[in-house]
């Protein structure tokens, strides 16, 4: 009996010595989350990434693996975020004809709105006495995750807090764009889509594709341009302030 438990604890050691257990758990949680999400009829307030993260957090905590062990293995997945960020250039190029068609409103709106998307939150958090670490983590809250993670690393914030804030921002932006567009009586899918992508990154874009393919295309565009603009200017602005 003790021999068996010895062997089991040895198995755990072997499993934890490589990254495959973390990768397997992440894949399992991801697949389970997708399944649950469709099963619950795609609720706007509960995107698959949130479901997967909750499942993983519980498993990692209850099993005693611990977050740092898990994260070490999962790094084999997250390194792919580098080439995945580069890959975002492809849809951006494919949207280029939309940019040409509506370049004036885009050119006027993008720098102001993308700056304010970061600025409002930073101002409020600063007034309420948040620490520099929190401010650096919240700055990229409207930017799509792979780009935001890069920005936060450059600013010296907490990537985990950024991702949490990102998630909440995406869900809220989807709800707020719906309400505000009704209130302002805006029915142009191009404008609604652009606002969804600019403020709500990938989560807003998923919502935009539910409205119409046109809204989806403009949301991808808003997401991509906001990502590029914020990634280029926020670290420079932070460097000047600091």
């Amino acid at each position: 009996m003790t021999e068996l438990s010895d062997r089991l604890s040895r198995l755990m050691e072997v499993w934890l010595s490589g990254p495959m257990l973390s990768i397997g758990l992440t894949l399992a949680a991801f697949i389970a989350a997708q399944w649950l999400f469709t099963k619950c009829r795609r609720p706007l307030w509960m995107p698959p990434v949130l479901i997967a993260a909750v499942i993983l957090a519980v498993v990692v905590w209850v099993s005693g693996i611990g977050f740092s062990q898990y994260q070490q293995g999962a790094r084999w997945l997250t390194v792919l975020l580098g080439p995945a960020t580069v890959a975002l250039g492809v849809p951006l190029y494919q949207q280029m004809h939309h940019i040409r068609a509506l370049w004036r409103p885009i050119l006027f709106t993008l720098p102001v709105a993308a700056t304010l998307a970061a600025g409002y939150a930073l101002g409020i958090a600063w007034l309420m006495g948040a620490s520099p670490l929190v401010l650096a983590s919240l700055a990229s809250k409207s930017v799509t995750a792979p780009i935001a993670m890069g920005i936060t690393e450059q600013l010296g914030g907490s990537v985990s807090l950024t991702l949490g804030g990102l998630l909440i921002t995406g869900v809220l932006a989807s709800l707020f764009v719906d309400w505000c567009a009704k209130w302002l009586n805006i029915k142009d899918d191009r404008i609604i889509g652009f606002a969804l992508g600019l403020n709500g990154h990938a989560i807003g874009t998923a919502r935009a594709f539910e409205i119409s393919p046109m809204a989806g295309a403009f949301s991808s565009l808003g997401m991509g341009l906001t990502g590029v603009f914020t990634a280029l200017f926020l670290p420079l602005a932070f460097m000047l302030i600091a």
Partner: protein
Amino acid sequence: MVWLWGFFVLVVFFLLGEAVRVVAGLPISGGVIGMVLVTLKLMIRGNITDSLAAASQGLISVLVLLITPGVVGVFFVADQFSGQWLAVAVALVVGTLLSVLTTLWLMSSVAKADDKEAGHDGTQ
């Protein structure tokens, strides 16, 4: 293996982005610089290879999977930010509401002004 060449191209552009970041001393992540470079390259070329399209589509479709390990972390850093959660929550909720309103208002006013101008030109 149609995507393998495309994946290689993405990795090369990522490495190029890192090179630009380090050599020029920019505070921007190598992935973002690589993305800008790849967009510029495609604009100059004027079209896109099947291989690059397949590789980027594949990676983008699993983006959520790649982000998930980072999101899990937020449940484990909670005490690191104790006492600041109210500031974070208010900043996120009010900040997002204000920026959504600003974007919608700005975009629709500029688009409306453009339409009016176009209509004016049309009557002349």
